[in-house]
């Protein structure tokens, strides 16, 4: 793809011997990283592989035990690295949560990066600040009014604003090393592609771009070189030209990935468990479909298509304006999450952090939340039985945790998601609503979760799954519905490839725009 710079590129910075331990855990063990000017370098690895720790150390927010950062001019000691030194070494960071303040203007959001234009008394000079902001943003193809509130920006525009803020103090003649932590995690495919193009432009203009990502397809498309971390050690650095997704997955996991999950083959019963008749509410318009026992139905659509809202509508956390909702043949008149949960409907939300896990609680509590009634006998909560069953279920759902009493926050994102899913699976739900169930988790955990979903389907659950990973939908679903602007516009039978799904989604988006 970019074979012309396969010759050893000119080094921008090098990290040598980065080591960091937390308690008994070796988070980083003698990690090295070589970055060149003009390249997009992907940094990949499973959850807990040490990527985030490495980024924090380089940003100077967390000291390493040892290690150095070498630039052409200087060598920096990573055990005493500060954010100021990091900036002087030319390092810039865009974090996963880009910290855009929606209630402030775009110019103020830029200014908070330390670059307000001030008057004599230290007051902010509004007009000059705005002019400056406009200039900076134009460099990133973001042609917006700097006086506008950042709330008005779309998700991809916010990402651009964050990049602009990180790079605003880098002069025309200077070059920076820009680290982006999962910049596309919240973006749908098309907008992610736009962002990646911007990154390519940055690299072409001489900067060095480091992309931390879980999306293997994106890494394969965008990166020139890939460095993989596994359990805090270097698992290898390879050229993108030698890269296939299978090779990449193997590098991350340290073993071959068995893509055995394939449910489409299983038989679907004719028993309807969920039926929507002309359901409207929020952005959803007259949606009708039926879900059968043992069936997996995929929902594909771009951001803003109403995927999440459709799930929330069915689960009763969003108001149903008109239409009929039937659960196992019986109409539900005023859907609410408690009524739905009682009727055997399960919902795994997209926002694991705020809607999935109960922070500051144990794994056992998280696995059994909302189910304590089952353990209430003789006027007493049977805590010992609860603890025993929770511990047993950890292995059943392949959750890697020290114990059932460990804090949920001590688990990696993938394992937290297994707990959230497991919480519902242990109730053997009739209907399983899954909103982006594999978002932000590594390939290993992803396979486990897909396997669990497939198992639940075989055990008789009906599954409705919304995902922006079309490849997952293609592998799992018996049918896939295309959602666009709150309407179901197409239905694809089993076996539709992820490429077909993407084409269909984009076609409908274009048709709607017209």
């Amino acid at each position, binding site marked *: 793809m970019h074979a012309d710079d396969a010759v050893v590129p000119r080094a921008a910075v090098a990290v040598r011997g980065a080591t960091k331990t937390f308690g008994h855990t070796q988070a980083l063990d003698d990690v090295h990283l070589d970055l060149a000017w003009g390249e997009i370098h992907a940094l990949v690895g499973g959850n807990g592989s040490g990527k985030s720790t490495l980024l924090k150390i380089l940003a100077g927010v967390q000291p390493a035990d040892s290690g150095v950062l070498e630039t052409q001019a200087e060598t920096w000691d990573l055990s005493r690295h500060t954010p100021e030194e990091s900036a002087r070494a030319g390092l810039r960071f865009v974090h996963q949560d880009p910290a855009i303040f929606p209630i402030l203007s775009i110019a103020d959001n830029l200014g908070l990066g330390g670059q307000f234009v001030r008057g004599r008394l230290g007051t902010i000079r509004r007009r000059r600040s705005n002019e400056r902001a406009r200039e900076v943003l134009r460099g990133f193809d973001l042609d917006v009014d700097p006086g506008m509130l950042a709330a008005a920006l779309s998700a991809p525009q916010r990402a651009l604003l964050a990049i602009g803020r990180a790079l605003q103090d880098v002069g025309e003649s200077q070059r920076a090393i820009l680290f982006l932590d999962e910049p596309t995690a919240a973006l749908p495919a098309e907008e992610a592609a736009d962002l990646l193009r911007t990154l390519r432009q940055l690299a072409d203009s001489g900067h060095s771009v480091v992309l931390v990502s879980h999306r293997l397809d994106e890494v394969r498309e965008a990166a020139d070189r890939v460095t993989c971390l596994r359990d805090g050690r270097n698992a290898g650095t390879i050229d993108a030209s030698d890269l296939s997704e299978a090779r990449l997955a193997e590098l991350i996991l340290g073993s071959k990935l068995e893509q055995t999950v394939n449910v489409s083959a299983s038989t679907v019963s004719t028993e309807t468990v969920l039926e929507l008749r002309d359901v409207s509410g929020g952005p959803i318009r007259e949606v009708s479909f039926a879900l059968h026992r043992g069936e997996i139905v995929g929902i594909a659509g771009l951001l803003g298509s109403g995927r999440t809202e459709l799930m929330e509508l069915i689960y009763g956390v969003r108001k149903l304006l008109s239409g009929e909702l039937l659960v196992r043949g019986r109409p539900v008149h005023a859907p609410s999450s*408690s009524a739905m949960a009682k009727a055997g409907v399960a919902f795994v939300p997209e926002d694991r*952090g705020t809607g999935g896990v109960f922070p500051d*609680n144990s794994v056992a*509590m998280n696995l059994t*939340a909302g189910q304590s009634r089952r353990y209430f006998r003789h006027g007493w909560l049977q805590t010992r039985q609860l603890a025993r069953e929770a511990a047993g279920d950890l292995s059943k759902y392949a959750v890697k945790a020290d114990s059932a009493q460990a804090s949920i926050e001590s688990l990696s994102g993938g394992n937290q998601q297994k707990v959230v899913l497991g919480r519902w699976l242990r109730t053997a739900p009739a209907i399983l609503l899954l909103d982006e169930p594999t978002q932000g988790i590594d390939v290993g955990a992803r396979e486990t979760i897909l396997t669990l979903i497939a198992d639940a389907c075989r055990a008789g659950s009906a599954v409705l799954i919304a995902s922006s990973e079309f490849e997952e939908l293609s592998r799992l679903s018996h049918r896939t519905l295309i959602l666009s602007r709150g309407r179901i516009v197409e239905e694809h039978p089993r076996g539709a490839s992820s490429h077909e799904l993407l084409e269909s989604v984009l076609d409908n988006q274009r048709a709607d725009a017209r």
Partner: protein
Amino acid sequence: MNAGGRLTEFFERYALLGLLLLVGVFFSLNPSTSEFDSSANITAILSNQSILGILAIATVIPLVTGQIDLSVGPNAGLTSVLCAGLMSKSGWPLPAAVLAAIVVGAVIGIVNGILVAGFRIPSIIATLGMTSVIAAIVQAYSGGLSITTGISPVLINLGSGNWLGLPKLFYFMVGAGLVAWYFLEKTPLGKSLYALGSSPRAALLVGIRVPRLTFRSFVIAGALAGGTGILVIANVGSGNPELGPNYTLPAIAAAFLGATAIQPGRYNVWGTITAVFFLAESVNGLTLWGASPWLSELFDGAALIIGVGLGIYAGTVRRRAAGRGQEEAHRPDSGSPPTADSPPTAAPDVAAADGGEAKSR
């Protein structure tokens, strides 16, 4: 868990209880505070603090769900004046006056609950406003005068004398503590309350009826405070319109400081009661030693700040100890609910999690 971890945990749990005992022993042995361990003094502490203990328990219940009730003290003040007034001015019999006090307390809780769970007014605002409304009602009803005559002797009698060597009021607190502990720790209701306090949205999504539970926590707190008002009459022998608001800060301070003991990191009944007595005996001992009376306000203020501070500090330490897993765990965002580590302040949008508009994308 290794031995070191267990030792740290033991220390975290029982540090405040140990301190309570240590301070008690200190003042008992201190020759300048020889009255400290006299039975009259100990009885006085146990009686007075039992009232505060129940009010602190009433405060804990909404706190567990991530809400705060500032009107618990004034509520008790109102019902004490009302209960005394009904007997004295209107000639009601004791049982009717007692029932009326509890009902009025519950009604205040119902109004708080509707404001918070129904209208989604931040609890700190709703109950702060309620505090002032109650003060007005108390003034209107009592004219600012204490009601000292015509109170049932049965009630007055309750405030003096012992059962089995302990002041009678103390048993009421132990009873309230046991009931609250049972519900919070041993029933599904309590688990739901704690789940709600940990994450309102996650609680909603596992099928917990968030608004209803929030509402109930305020009603329980209100009824409990209303009942405590009756015991206030027993304790001081009159219906005193000035008394109620004085309980607000100590009760909240004890609830927050209590969240650092017995079950550190969460609001809990026994930790709260430990905190009530720790604060009381410290102030009492120091006063006997010659300290000025303003000391108690200093102590309550400091306890509130230290309690919250310790909670945040301990939370940070625990998270750091969680080590590598934390590294890529979720980032708590600004919408995270109040917990013992991050007490409710401005606008915890708990009730916002019900029906209507869920988080849109």
